[in-house]
Structure formats: C-alpha cells, structure tokens
C-alpha cells in the first residue's frame, strides 16, 4: 500500500529544484579544474551514492524513509537524487582548490559531514524526507562519513592514475 504525504507541488519540490539550480550554476560558473569526464565522475558519483543508499535503507525490509510526496517512485524523487550531484562535485572541487593535505582529511570530511547533516535537516523540514520506523537524522551521520571518505578515496585514485600517466 502506497503512502501519500501530499499531492501538491509545494515546498519539498521547490526545495529540490532550487537546490539543484543553485548547485548546477555553481558547478558551471566556478573556474574549471578537472576534465569533463572527471567532472562527470564527481557529479554523477554522488547521485550514485545517494541512490544506492536510499534504495537500500529506504526500501523494505528496512524502509527507514520516503522521499518527496509518495512512498512509490516519482520523477521528483529522481530529481532529488540529481540535486546530490553538485554537492559531491563541490566537495572534491574545494578539496582540490585548497590543496588540503592528508593530515587534514579527517577534519575536511567531518566538516562536510556536518554540512550534509544540516542540509538534510533543512530537506526534512521542507518535506523532502519523511522518516519512518524510528529513523532519526543522526543515523545519517555515519552514512555521510562513509560516503565522503569513499569519495576522497575515489579522488585520490583518479589523481594517482593521472600522475602515473
């Protein structure tokens, strides 16, 4: 049985669309630092991680949350996953831009994990996420930590390949 949270085009859809537009403009306007393919990896990668985690803990047997208006899958659900893309790109962009040294990786990842949790808090407040079955926002903390650490690993892998060429 599908759960319907609301059926209007309201705050949750606007939150997703505005976040996506601001993110894409930022990605587009910032001075270029990566090749097209590398940029796409960093952009699509976060959509990938978001979708994998959401389609793991967001469906039965766990079913900890629903996205946007219904528990079934809608076009706006996919748009919400696309809005993760700029976030992943900017995470790597600023890491590369500020030439963060390895000893500061933990602090950098922790900082972005906090930013992620705060963003999720606002997304939840705007009705993008609907927590179920006892899920609390702080459960997302280790998930972001894991994703962002993996993302940094991905950046290091691609850079080591580039350096070896």
């Amino acid at each position, binding site marked *: 049985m599908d759960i319907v949270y609301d059926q209007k085009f309201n705050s949750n859809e606007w939150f997703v669309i505005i976040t996506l537009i601001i993110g894409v403009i930022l*990605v*587009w306007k910032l001075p*270029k*630092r*990566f*090749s*097209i*393919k*590398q*940029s*796409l*990896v960093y*952009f*699509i*990668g976060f*959509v*990938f991680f978001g*979708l*994998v985690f959401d*389609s*793991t803990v967001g*469906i*039965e*047997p766990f*079913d900890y949350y629903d996205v946007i208006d219904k*528990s*079934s*899958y809608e076009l706006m659900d*996919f748009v919400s996953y696309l809005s993760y893309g700029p976030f992943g790109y900017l995470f790597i962009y600023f890491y590369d831009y500020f030439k963060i040294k390895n000893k500061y990786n933990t602090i950098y990842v922790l900082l972005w994990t906090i930013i992620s949790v705060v963003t999720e808090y606002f997304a939840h407040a705007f009705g993008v996420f609907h927590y179920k079955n006892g899920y609390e926002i702080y459960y997302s903390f280790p998930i972001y930590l894991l994703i962002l650490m993996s993302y940094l690993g*991905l950046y290091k*892998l*691609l850079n080591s*390949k580039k350096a070896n060429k």
Partner: protein
Amino acid sequence: MAVALFVFIAWVIISVYFFVPKRLSTEEIILLFFLFTIITINIFVILDFNLKLIQHNNKSPKLFISFWIHRNIIIPLTLIIFVNFMNNFKSKIKKFITTVLVFSILYLINLLAFGIGLLTYSTNLFYLGSAIFLAALMLLAFLTMKLVTKLPEGKSM
C-alpha cells in the same frame, strides 16, 4: 545459502573483470559503473514499486543482501565487462557472440534469483519479461558507453 551463492557469483564476476583487457580509461569505467548502477536501480525500482511486475523479497534480510549484491554489483559489473568487450572487438561476429554470451549469463543469474525467491514475478510472461528487461539494460549500457567514449577530453563544466 542465497548470500553465499550471490557473493560467489559476484566474486567470479569481479575476477573476470580484472582479467578483461580494457581500452576504456579508469575514469570512463568508473563513470560507466555509476551510470549502469543508476540505470539498473531505477529500472528495478520502477518495476518493483510502481508497476509491481518484479518484486524483491522484503521479508528476509538474507535474501535482501543477495538481491542487493545482484542489483548493485553483479548486473552493473557484468555490463562493464560487456561494454569493455564491445569496445575491444572490431569483428561483428565476436561482438554478436559476446552479446549472446553476456545475455545468457545475466539471464541465468536472473533465473536463479527468481528460483531461490530473491525476486518474484507477478505476470505469466516471466521468461519473456526477464529477457526484455535484460536486453533493455544491455542496450542502454551499450548506448551509454558510446556516449561516454565520445565525450571530449578537455577541461569543462
């Protein structure tokens, strides 16, 4: 049993991946893996939650782990191996044989997933439905690979 079986299949697919000669760059392979997983998950979710044609077993965590391995590792990685072969071979016969072989492997793994109750099918067109689903995935994978390899190398975005 189901988890062990699907971990083993995933291990075989991962091992094959490492032995396949690759003309695609690391960036292309990673990008394609992301895209194939996104496509696979989207198709599964639409078939499962919206159309209710193929449904995953939502009662047993063990079967869910197997389903997760099937959807997120076995299918996308098999598609990566497939597009690598398609990119390596010039001969149309070799490409055709590879397509039939990869399709057969994916089809058998899918049958196994249904056989052990990982997935359930709600129509009578079970065999045909599975074939269409996998053929569509392989076609999308091939087209995505063509698109990604045509991307320019320069700095942009």
